């Protein structure tokens, strides 16, 4: 182990070196996957315990998400994620408390103040575009962000992230075409988990690989194994470098698996065979990444134990904290319709301040 003056471990195993990373980078990535999985599992427990009406999950996508998010510059580059992007958002600076506040839909939820369903994260400060539920709309926001970066002379990279189901929407065609015409600093990440809720890939895609569609726009289409975190990292890094240096967009398709039902309102055993589900579990990125790091000597029993303790306490803290936070006051529900009060319609008669116009945002 090589420890620098600031306490950073710059040790580089052959595995880390193969991706141009340090062992600390690998451990930080692994920790993000572990944390994401632990938060995600807790969300399901809360749902089944009747404490959260809805869960939408990223389990099975974590390896691809951490690898693809890692090369981006946090708070400078932009991501327009989707409702399975829990690991991506953690890697881009959101905290366990942020995610749990969204899960409990509390007033202090940084994403939406409890206005959106859980999993719809967003933060202007962190350059995480607010997630909505209509799928694929975010590709155009990411393309527009990239266009604005170009116009302003900045070298920020903009990434849209969605599933293969969403990739069939018309906005994807319109967005990729425009981004490619202008060689914008844009990346489209498709996390292909093989299902659009219940519809299998062969019934929703006319081709085997979404990435093969990239050639129709004259941009590179890259396929990566979502259980291979470092392959995802390398693909993301190459695409980021290409985008930042003016080389234009890249489409990256990560083959992942969906370990849970579509959401807490879905029962996937109705449409997936036991064999299919078993195959999915065999492609769980977490144990695969773990074994890879252990084999490389990067992850030790001691480190695993301390990480497990740390994550357990983070999840406990986030859950307790978020559950204890207040709900939003109905008196605030008319706020932020417009940026100024002049646009607001009169309040309904049951509103706490009925008869008055709503306030604009707090000054």
């Amino acid at each position: 182990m090589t420890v620098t003056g600031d306490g950073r471990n710059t040790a580089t195993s052959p595995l880390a070196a193969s991706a141009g990373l340090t062992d600390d980078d690998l451990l930080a990535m692994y920790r993000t996957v572990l944390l994401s999985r632990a938060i995600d599992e807790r969300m399901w427990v809360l749902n089944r315990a009747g404490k959260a009406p809805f869960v939408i999950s990223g389990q099975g996508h974590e390896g691809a998400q951490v690898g693809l998010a890692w090369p981006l510059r946090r708070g400078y580059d932009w991501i327009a994620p989707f409702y399975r992007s829990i690991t991506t958002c953690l890697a881009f600076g959101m905290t366990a408390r942020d995610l749990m506040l969204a899960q409990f839909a509390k007033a202090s939820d940084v994403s939406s103040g409890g206005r959106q369903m859980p999993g719809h994260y967003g933060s202007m400060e962190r350059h995480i575009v607010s997630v909505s539920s209509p799928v694929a709309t975010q590709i155009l926001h990411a393309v527009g962000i990239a266009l604005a970066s170009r116009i302003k002379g900045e070298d920020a990279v903009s990434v849209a992230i969605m599933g293969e189901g969403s990739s069939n929407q018309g906005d994807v065609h319109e967005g990729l075409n425009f981004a490619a015409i202008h060689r914008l600093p844009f990346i489209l990440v498709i996390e292909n988990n093989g299902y659009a809720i219940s519809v299998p890939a062969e019934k929703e895609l006319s081709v085997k690989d979404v990435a093969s569609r990239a050639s129709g726009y004259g941009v590179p289409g890259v396929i990566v194994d979502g259980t291979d975190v470092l392959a995802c990292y390398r693909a993301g890094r190459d695409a980021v470098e290409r985008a930042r240096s003016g080389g234009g967009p890249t489409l990256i398709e990560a083959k992942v698996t969906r370990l849970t039902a579509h959401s807490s309102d879905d029962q996937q055993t109705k449409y997936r065979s036991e064999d299919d589900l078993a195959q999915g579990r065999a492609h769980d990125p977490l144990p695969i990444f773990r074994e890879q790091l252990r084999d490389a000597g990067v992850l030790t029993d001691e480190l695993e134990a301390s990480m497990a303790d740390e994550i357990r306490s983070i999840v406990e803290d986030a859950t307790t904290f978020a559950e204890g936070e207040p709900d939003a006051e109905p008196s605030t529900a008319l706020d932020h319709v417009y940026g100024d009060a002049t646009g607001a319609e009169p309040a309904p008669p049951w509103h706490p301040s009925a008869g008055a116009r709503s306030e604009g945002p707090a000054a």
Partner: protein
Amino acid sequence: MTTRTLIEAIRDGLSEEMRRDPTVVVMGEDVGKKGGVFLATDGLWAEFGDNRVIDTPLTESMIVGTSIGAALNGLRPVAEIQFADFIHPAFNQIVSEAARLRYRTQGGFAVPMVIRAPYGGGVHGALYHSQSVEAFFTHVPGLKVVVPSTPYDAKGLLRSSIRDDDPVLFFEHKRMYRSVRGDVPDGEYTVPLGRAAIRRQGRQVTLVAYGLMVAFGLEAAEQVAGEGIDVEVVDLRSLRPLDRETLLGSVRKTGKCLVAYEDNRFGGYGAEIAAIVAEEAFDFLDGPVSRIAGPDVPAMPYNHVLEDWFMLSPAKIADAIRRLAAY
């Protein structure tokens, strides 16, 4: 003062805002070298270049969605939808995204964007170059909807819309582009959103209108004036936010309210005006709140006889005024 047509006033407003604020960019189909199919952006590309005047593919959802993204990243895009009839592919981006981003992030995100679109009929535009689409969007909290009826207002309202921090739909009646002229000050001025204008003072009937129907309504008012019917014409200018005070003040004075709109009658914007007047000025009314509007067929037919049948006219509005005034 300079005399300008409506479209010249819009072009002046755009170019002056672009000179004033380097974050203002224009996007749309044919807006570049051609200057737009109605020439609203003529000359902008030559002055501001490729970076700020962007010709797009035929992709309305992309024009709006990309403008939303650009607005999130510090620009003030002015998107042009070539005809309001073609705005529907962008409906999801406008309603699900532009209108809701501020609300769904507690003010964390804002979309300062203008969508300009020529609307309206009477130009041999048939089913797909004549539509009035304002009602789809006035229904949506988070959007602002503006319809100018004079060159002065077109320029002043466009400037306010560009400077506004929320998404504004700016509908321009295409039949007014070159047929309407008016004085426009040479210096900088704005017309605030959410303020109606009383175009003609009157005591007996309030006629509420916007866009081309203001011009038709003023003609109709002159027609019935000789018969002793004194009409007040309220030009809403801004459909959302709505200037309730001016609207209700006028109706409380006259006791009669007729709303004229070119769109289909059923569920049109005028229905909301009628409901507000009925609820909030009931004690002042001495006649039914009435609407004169387009017929309920899917869209405006092409043949000139059928088009005339569809379109409102000063004579049709005058008839409706007479019926209401008779109460």
